[in-house]
């Protein structure tokens, strides 16, 4: 029988299921991350969220050689993999409950909270790690904490974030933050407010590049209507909200990954939009602007690769006002 206040835990052979009245999350040890995030019967994840280390090269990045200097972060963005998983139930670390360790559990396990930490190792030289901890509390509240471990010798980062790829294209999004597209060195003109954006617009720079960043955000709500579930004929809008947890975050909501943007030389070469790429950023490099053939971004808007960076946020059901 479902427990209405505590979390139901399903200690599977390759996953940990965490569910409640209106939600079910599946943390996959084999896939190395949160594989499924279902709210009110709707799936929100296409693949496991992954740490983000790259942004599609801007004209200024190309001009000042940043992309060459930091090229290993493109590889890291594409090929970082999970190397360790840790689970804590009600604040207590437990041995990783894969088979046969999970034989000691039942189909009626509950907890007040559970935390799963996936550690990712980058294919950089030197390598470093990023810890992503998901903490679920009774009722389904989900807090995500990302911690990047700096390592001496690593180049500056284009960005540090978590990429959440949703199975279908969103109808649009609402957020509370700054107007327009903003970056750390270009956000004075952003007017604080609550904004609705229809669709997932890609800023039509002549050469597709990093775009759509929203700095200093309190929350963002993504609205979708369709799922990939063949048994789900309901096309009523449904929503998911990311909310700040202590400090505002930055985000972009686009139909493309940085790699897809990086490949195109013109807007019309971008693939047909099919999915929603919501990226939550804890740190963003400035775009620069003095010139486009050598001038660096001002030093205060760089992201060091040799120091730690961390950020956290919450994922809640429905819209932000709920």
């Amino acid at each position, binding site marked *: 029988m479902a427990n209405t206040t505590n979390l139901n835990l399903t200690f599977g052979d390759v996953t940990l299921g965490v569910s409640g009245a209106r939600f079910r999350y599946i943390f996959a040890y084999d896939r190395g991350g949160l594989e499924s995030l279902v709210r009110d019967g709707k799936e929100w994840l296409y693949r496991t969220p992954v740490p983000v280390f790259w942004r599609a090269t*801007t*004209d*200024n990045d190309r*001009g000042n050689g940043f992309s060459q200097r930091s090229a290993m972060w493109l590889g890291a963005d594409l090929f970082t993999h999970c190397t360790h998983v840790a689970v804590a139930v009600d604040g207590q670390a437990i041995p990783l409950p894969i088979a046969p360790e999970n034989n000691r559990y039942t189909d009626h396990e509950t907890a007040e909270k559970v935390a799963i930490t996936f550690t990712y190792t980058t294919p950089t030289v030197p390598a470093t790690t990023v810890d992503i901890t998901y903490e679920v509390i009774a009722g389904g509240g989900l807090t995500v904490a990302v911690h990047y471990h700096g390592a001496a010798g690593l180049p500056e980062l284009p960005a540090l974030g978590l990429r959440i790829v949703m199975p279908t294209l969103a109808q649009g999004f609402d957020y509370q933050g700054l*107007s*327009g*597209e*903003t*970056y*750390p*060195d*270009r*956000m*004075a*003109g*952003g*007017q604080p407010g609550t904004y609705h954006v229809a669709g997932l617009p890609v*800023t*039509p*720079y*002549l*050469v597709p*590049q*990093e*775009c759509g960043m929203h700095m200093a955000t309190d929350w963002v709500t993504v609205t979708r209507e369709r799922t990939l579930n063949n048994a789900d004929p309901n096309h009523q809008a449904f929503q998911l909200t990311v909310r700040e947890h202590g400090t505002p975050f930055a985000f972009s909501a686009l139909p493309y990954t940085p790699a897809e943007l990086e490949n195109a030389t*013109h*807007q*019309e070469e971008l693939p047909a939009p099919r999915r929603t790429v919501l990226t939550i950023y804890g740190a963003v490099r*400035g*775009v*620069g*602007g*003095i*010139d*486009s*053939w050598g*001038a660096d*971004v*001002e030093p205060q*808007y760089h992201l060091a690769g040799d120091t730690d960076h961390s950020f956290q946020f919450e994922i809640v059901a429905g819209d932000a006002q709920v």
Partner: protein
Amino acid sequence: MKADLRWLDDPQTFRINQVPAHSDHRGYATLAEATAHHSRFVQSLDGQWAFQFARDPQHRPVGFYQPDYDRTDFDRLTVPGHIELAGYGQIQYINTAYPWEGKHYRRPAYSRGADQPEQGMFSTDPENTVGAYVKRFTLAPALQDKRVSIEFDGVEQAMFLWLNGQFVGYAEDSFSRSEFDLTPYLQPGENLLAVEVFKHSTAAFLEDQDMFRFSGIFRSVRLVAKPALHLEDLTIRAGADAALTTGQLALTLRLSAANKLAGAVQISLLDASGQPLWTAERDAAATIQLTTELPHVHLWSHHDPYLYRLQVTLHNPAGECVEVVPYPVGFRRLEMKDKVITLNGQRLIINGVNRHEWDAHRGRAVTLTDMKHDLRIFHANHINAVRTCHYPDQPIWYDLCDREGIYMMAENNLETHGTWQKMGAVEPSYNVPDDLPQWQLAVLDRAKSNYEMFKNHPAILFWSLGNESYAGEDLVAMDAYYHHVDPTRLTHYEGVFQNRVYADRISDVESRMYNPPREIEKYLQNAPAKPFLDCEYMHDMGNSLGGMASYDALLDRYPMYQGGFIWDFIDQALWVKDDVTGRPVLRYGGDFDDRHSDYEFSGDGLLFADRTPKPALQEVRYYYGQHD
């Protein structure tokens, strides 16, 4: 005189039989026409012209201007427009290197010595495309039996003109008006006008602007009749006394007559509501000079672009009105005080943009709708100044800037960076115009065309010698020319930053491009000789415009830092139909198989090429709003 193709090769031949440049005023037959800005003396030749394209001078239709030439196989082409955008000739975008990079080894005439004229460079160039244009016209009644001239507002890059089979003249300087007197060649009934346009001449060395490279008659063409008594030129000097209360007006009128110079001239100054404030009358004369003072003058400025109206009325000896010339007058006081530029006593702050003329459908043949859109964007974002990079714009743009209170840096059609900037480095081993006497007249003529045409526009605060053309005696001569003819404005030139030898002789301002804020600060902290302007800064290529705060901060700290012009206003890209999807898409350099190219480097605008704002524009609105 007969046309000679070798003029294309000679930097000392750039205007043959052209009417000397003069002010851009328009004459009207009546006051009512003047008020309506519709002159019966003007007959537009815009529209469909007969046209034939040739891939080089050797394949051009020789003698096509003759009345009996068989032109049955000519096409139709719309004027104004670029030949390349009509499907003839390859579209190319290139920045610093010359468009023949990798195809021809060239050195500008005389740059390797006075005995190296480089004959045949363009007249026998196998890639110098040619457009043969023909237009038939019959003079409208109001133009008949009068002196008639023809005005070409923009022809790129060299043109020969014939009327009824007779050679009329030759012009270079793509962006200045070329005017010819047609009177001796006109015939009753239908007339046959022929223009032969060459894509390249020695002017190519002077017109190496970072832009798509086009050719053709890309601005309007019109016939203009002069009544029996005509105002040829008008110079308006409208200033204010040091107390900024008394307006000081000085006028110079130059008249011409079809026969005998006789009659009378009435000159009036009216306020914006049409109330006459001052009237004078003089006998007609070749030159008339007047001065007056205006108590309690209403000054012109960005926020209050108040325009008086000058009205010059010419009467024949019978007392009949034959011509009315209206001209807006803005009184203002521009001066240097303690090395700070002031306008009407206030420190001038330039919240500027560089603006190429651009329309993604029409290239540089922009429309009035484009211009009005641009001005709305200016006002919505606290943009108060424009640099006409790097050539004079369509004349109407100057009128609009007067009316809208937009400060102008009026720049000459001059850019030679391909001769001294190579592989991103300063490399002036050969360059033009340098100190070369063979090139000096051409660049001085460009300065003169710019000054004479636009000298009466209050919006213009700076004459700019050109862009990225290094520095030498020829630039010195240009600077001296402007100071000689116009003590009321300042000169601007950035190129002297690359050759400091000329720092004392060129430019009233210290102008730099893309200088980091800390470098500017160093200049300002070390006994600066001149006030500072960024002629280009905040290079807005793609997703850019970060760090504007550091420039903005200089405005508060250093009075001699007077702002700058963002590079630039609008992306240069062209709408084409995508072969794969059939949909309209924006294309840039290299997308037309054009090589050598600088690809997307033309996409540096605050607006996308379709005139929608880039996201960065809100940042400009914020910072420019801090000092508006």
